[in-house]
């Protein structure tokens, strides 16, 4: 399943339409944040190698973004693309849920 999903993704890779745009909001270097960054990077490297852009934003540095992005719980991962937009909160330790959130789950 993962493969089959990957295939059209790879086909459209040239249009850069199906590239995974990920934004991870964290709060400085709190344990949750560091764990989330580490976990997410690992998952991405494993499943989306070369097919994703990950932006890590420290909300402490940009407090206005919290309102704009409707941020409540942190860490928060927003999958901007491909649609639909999904929001994942937590330290990304539940890999299955992260994959499901990113529509990568092999269910």
């Amino acid at each position, binding site marked *: 399943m993962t493969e089959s999903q990957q295939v059209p993704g790879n086909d459209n890779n040239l249009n850069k339409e199906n590239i995974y745009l990920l934004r991870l*909001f964290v*709060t400085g270097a*709190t344990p*949750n944040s560091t*764990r*989330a960054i580490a*976990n997410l990077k690992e998952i991405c490297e494993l499943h989306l190698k070369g097919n994703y852009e990950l932006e890590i934003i420290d*909300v*402490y540095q940009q*407090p*206005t973004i*919290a*309102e704009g992005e*409707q*941020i*409540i*719980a*942190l*860490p*928060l*991962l927003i999958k901007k693309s491909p649609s639909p*937009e*999904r*929001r*994942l*909160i*937590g*330290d*990304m*330790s*539940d890999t299955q*849920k*992260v994959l*499901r*959130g990113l529509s990568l789950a092999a269910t």
Partner: protein
Amino acid sequence: MTKDYIKENIKYNQPQLPKTLTGITGLDEITEGGIPKGRPTLVCGEAGCGKTLLSLEFIVRGAIEFDEPGVFMAFEEKTEELAMNVASLGFDLNSLQAENKLKLDYVHIDRSEIEETGEYDLEGLFIRLGYAIDSIGAKRVVLDTIESLFAGLTNQGILRAELRRLFNWLKVKGVTTIITGERGEGPSFTRQGLEEYVSDCVILLDHRVVNQISTRRLRILKYRGSVHGTNEYPFLIDEDGISVLPVTSLKLEKEVSTERISSGIPALDKMLEGKGFFKGSSVLVSGTAGTGKTSIAACFANETCNQKKRCLYFAFEESPKQIIRNMQSINVNLQKQVDEGLLQFHAMRPTLHGLEQHLVAMYKIIKNFKPTVVVLDPITNLVTVGSVSEVKAMLIRLIDFLLDEQITVMFTALTLNNVVTEQTDEGVSSLVDTWLLVRDIEFNGERNRGIYIMKSRGMKHSNQVREFVITDKGIDIVDVFLGPDGVLTGSAREAQKLQEQTGEVIRKNSVSLKDREIGRKRKILESKIAGLQSEFESAEDELNKIYVEEELIKKVAEENRQKMIMMRRGENASENKNEK
């Protein structure tokens, strides 16, 4: 009164818990100075009981009246919706936002969009709130309704820990916070047991429907470290926002006036020592249907306005137009007074609000209009809304309030049966200062109106039953006729009057008859006297005639004798002449 109370408290209880005035009418009086400063207060209640409005008014009043900017964090309604909803109350949230006095923040959480992938915290909320507070220097914060978080996020353990942290953080920030919460099932006040975290002040709002009439009430459940009113207070949401009415007056220390004001019916004034009612007293006019209670009230209102004083007329039965038209027929022109702005009508069906809300509404109108006289016509209809004891309690509060303000009040009350009871149905007769009773007097095939004064405190009033007449010229009170058969009124009285008049005429007539007879008798006597006189004169003449004849005879005889002597002895003739 409340302010004095607060002062006293400060005197005896120093240091007083610092409080923040909410600016909401009445609430600051109940809480004796507002909600705890720099601490969270929980406002809970069922859906639609006014939590959001109360908290929003707290923010807006703070921004406008106390120069304390506020942050309103909405979890349920979008900011545009909020602004629209309260625009009708005259709160312009957008311009306040532009002036940096207010910050609205809508927090959107949708469970379907969110996947929980492990440990998280609510730091995002903290950052947002912190940023909002710092950006405008907010002193007040509202979280409405933070329980929505529980719908959006599943991990209760994290949420509870984070909420506890949030409230502590808010305390550290030193902002006065209102947190709203939906009333939960069972004994807890909120669904998620927020009262566990907010333990300083809990305000409970309630929206109860009794007899199909809803009343909003507010109660302070707990207020740590402060004295507060413990009753349920009714509150009203209207075009000026929320008004809570702490109506239960505990003291009976009112100013009294010896000033009098006229009832508008001169004859009635006469019955009241010739001066009328005391200013600031309460007057009850009770009577059976159609006895003219409203007419009396209208006369009173009219007279008040004629003296260039303001009068407020609460009509619970008829519309203002109806009253104006009907009173025109008895020569009371209320339209003129309305046009001059001296008279104001407020007509409402009693079933419009609950009793308490009526009271709040009246209280507000009276505060705004500042009348000298208030008329309630009739109070009987209020019973449809509440029980007798409730109506009585409400009227006590109203009378207390009016007397405090030195406003004269006239109630009309319908007594439901023809037997005049000594008690009105509302049981207010013991509260009022003057009680006029208008009753039907059924006699001789017609009904007439009788009026008397049951009581009038502090004056020597008339004890008479008078007849109360309504004509197209106005109201008059006339003496009833006390005949051998009892009290006579109406046409019986008129008949009695006529009868008296007839008697008078007859008497007059008979007198003149007698007079004429005397005249005639006199004439007869006089003529008789004249006859006798002439008789006497003729008799006298007769007598005189005899006398003269005798004289003549005597004379002639003497002459004859002298002649005879002369003839017999001529010489004596000269002697006799000399003798003569």
